[in-house]
């Protein structure tokens, strides 16, 4: 798994590629926390090139979402969620917890 971070005027864009499992999920959490440390809590996660995510990744997203939404200071939104990952999201009831966008521009523009 690789995460690259870009900062825009109103949010940060994290592009996550590869596979997120119990081994790599801590790296995803670290990337989200690094953005939070810069006082940025509006985050777009581009998952378009993500091959796989297990529940360890879901937990990282859940914890990140809690931190970002606190005090209404922001939130994590998801862009380009691959179909098979979306299906696992649905199974675990995660879909109501994250806004989802079909493209990155719309997601970044939502902030």
């Amino acid at each position, binding site marked *: 798994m690789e995460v690259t971070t870009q900062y825009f005027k109103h949010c940060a864009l994290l592009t996550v590629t590869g596979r997120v499992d119990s081994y790599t999920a801590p790296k995803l959490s670290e990337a989200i926390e690094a953005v939070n440390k810069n006082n940025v809590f509006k985050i777009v996660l581009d998952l378009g090139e993500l091959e796989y995510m297990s529940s360890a990744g879901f937990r990282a997203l*859940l914890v990140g979402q809690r931190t970002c939404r606190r005090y209404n200071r922001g939130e994590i939104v998801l862009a380009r969620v691959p179909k*098979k990952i979306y299906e696992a999201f649905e199974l675990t009831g995660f879909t109501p917890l994250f806004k989802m966008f079909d493209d990155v521009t719309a997601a970044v523009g939502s902030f």
Partner: protein
Amino acid sequence: MRTIVFPASFEQLDAIREFVGQAARDAEMSETEICAVQMAVDEACSNIIEHAYHGRSGEIEVTSDFRDETLTIVLRDYGDSFDPRSVPQPDLTSDLEERQVGGLGIYLMRQLMDEVRYEQHAGAGNVLFLVKRRRRQP
């Protein structure tokens, strides 16, 4: 029937998913079924590494067997016994603050497979059977 013994480490999850993915492909299962098997086995092995071995070194023996339209993955470990049935089903409708981060893996495992069976053998480790039946292709 094929068996590979993997070190019980999160680093091995990629290789374990690859092994069971190949077993599902060899069984000519659909892409959705292959993904389901890979994810369920990943969740089960993550639990073994975390809750049976508590991060200590150990082994997970992974066996795949396809017969009668059914793929059975058997995971054997020699760590502390960990019965997935002891984990309560997570509340999937609670809001963000109330949402539990644990128990999701086991819930997914049960949703993705047709059968999940746990057996504890004195001196022969903990055995988890993950069963997926191949659906007829349209």
